[in-house]
């Protein structure tokens, strides 16, 4: 247990259940931002940053406010248990949207160079389904606080890895002589399919 389980979570989040290639979350930025290596790196780091924070914050909110237990905030105040889990979707999306906004302001204040590098990608992340998806997955997999945070971070790494690989390939692809109908997104999807086949090889990893 402990460190061993965390290692399994990290490896499976990066390679086996890669967020893009096998869970199909965050496809829009994957196709949209992968044309240039520079912007892919920027987007990747912004996603790691937001995913890690969002995983831990949404987990805490779920446990403290929504899930009926004796650790619940409403239980401390009223002495009764309220099952508010049906508010999960609406709470998470609002928390994520405000969180992204907050992160943007804090980064702008604390580290202008970092803001300059990540700035334009941060607002786009609100509608990146990876963030909401991972928050929901953390709850459904019954992860605890540390596991959720690590999972969020590892998923971010997996996202960045695939995004950067894809950007590198697409920069090369620009120089190729492609059939006209397949220029642009069409060939990007076929490329993604081939990468996904390659990543299927990791599915054989057993712990």
């Amino acid at each position: 247990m402990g460190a061993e389980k965390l290692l399994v979570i990290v490896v499976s989040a990066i390679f086996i259940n890669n967020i893009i290639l096998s869970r199909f979350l965050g496809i829009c930025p994957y196709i949209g931002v992968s044309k240039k290596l520079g912007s892919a790196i920027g987007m990747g780091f912004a996603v790691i940053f937001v995913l890690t924070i969002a995983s831990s914050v949404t987990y805490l909110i779920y446990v403290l406010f929504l899930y009926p237990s004796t650790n619940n905030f409403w239980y401390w105040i009223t002495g009764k248990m309220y099952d508010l889990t049906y508010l999960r979707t609406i709470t998470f999306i609002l928390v994520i949207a405000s969180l992204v906004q907050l992160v943007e302001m804090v980064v702008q204040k604390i580290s202008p160079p970092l803001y300059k590098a990540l700035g334009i990608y941060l607002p786009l992340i609100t509608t990146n389904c990876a963030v909401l998806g991972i928050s929901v997955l953390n709850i459904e997999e019954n992860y605890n606080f540390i596991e959720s945070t690590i999972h969020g971070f590892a998923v971010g790494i997996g996202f960045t890895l695939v995004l950067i690989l894809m950007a590198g390939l697409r920069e090369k692809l620009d120089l190729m002589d492609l059939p006209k109908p397949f220029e642009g997104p069409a060939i990007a999807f076929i490329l993604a399919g081939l990468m996904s086949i390659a990543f299927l090889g990791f599915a054989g990893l057993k712990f």
Partner: protein
Amino acid sequence: MELKKEFLKGIYKENPIFRIMLGLCPTLAVTSSVENAIGMGLAASFVLLVSNSIISLIKGLIPDKIRIPSYIVVIASAVTVVDLVMAAYLPSLHKSLGIFVPLIVVNCIILGRAEAFASKNKLFPSIADALGMGLGFTLALMLLAFFRELLGNGTVLGINILGESYKPVLLMILPPGAFLTLGLLLGFFNFMDIKKQNKEK
């Protein structure tokens, strides 16, 4: 006639998946069988219909600065309704769609139509737009799922089409099949467009 135009544009000319390329995540994830595709398409269409109608009704009340959060709240409420109703009446479909039901909230088609159409138009055009876009989305999902299920499992809607001797291409049901099928279909639609343009010249 205006309504009919708003309705029809979603199906081919501005098809959300093949033309504007929005809402790709659920598209790829749920199309491993036609049944899931129909379920997802109808769920998203319902949310789109509710959010488009409500937003077109309250567009005058929402201050411009907080319009996106307000739209998201409307959409998330509709999604919660769909989520709970589906869990109660169609538990097996709910299970196979998994986290993609709550993820309808971040489906760009819905927020996109709210921002681009419902916030500027009256109720009835917004309803027509939602129905057309929803139908276009559902049809596109079904088309993708048709190829994937047929080649990957030899069936359509669970009915065996290709006979017992057909050896299924498992790859089509697995994640790579989704990317490859969508890529090839996009290429095909682009090809048809280029052919049509050449003819007009």
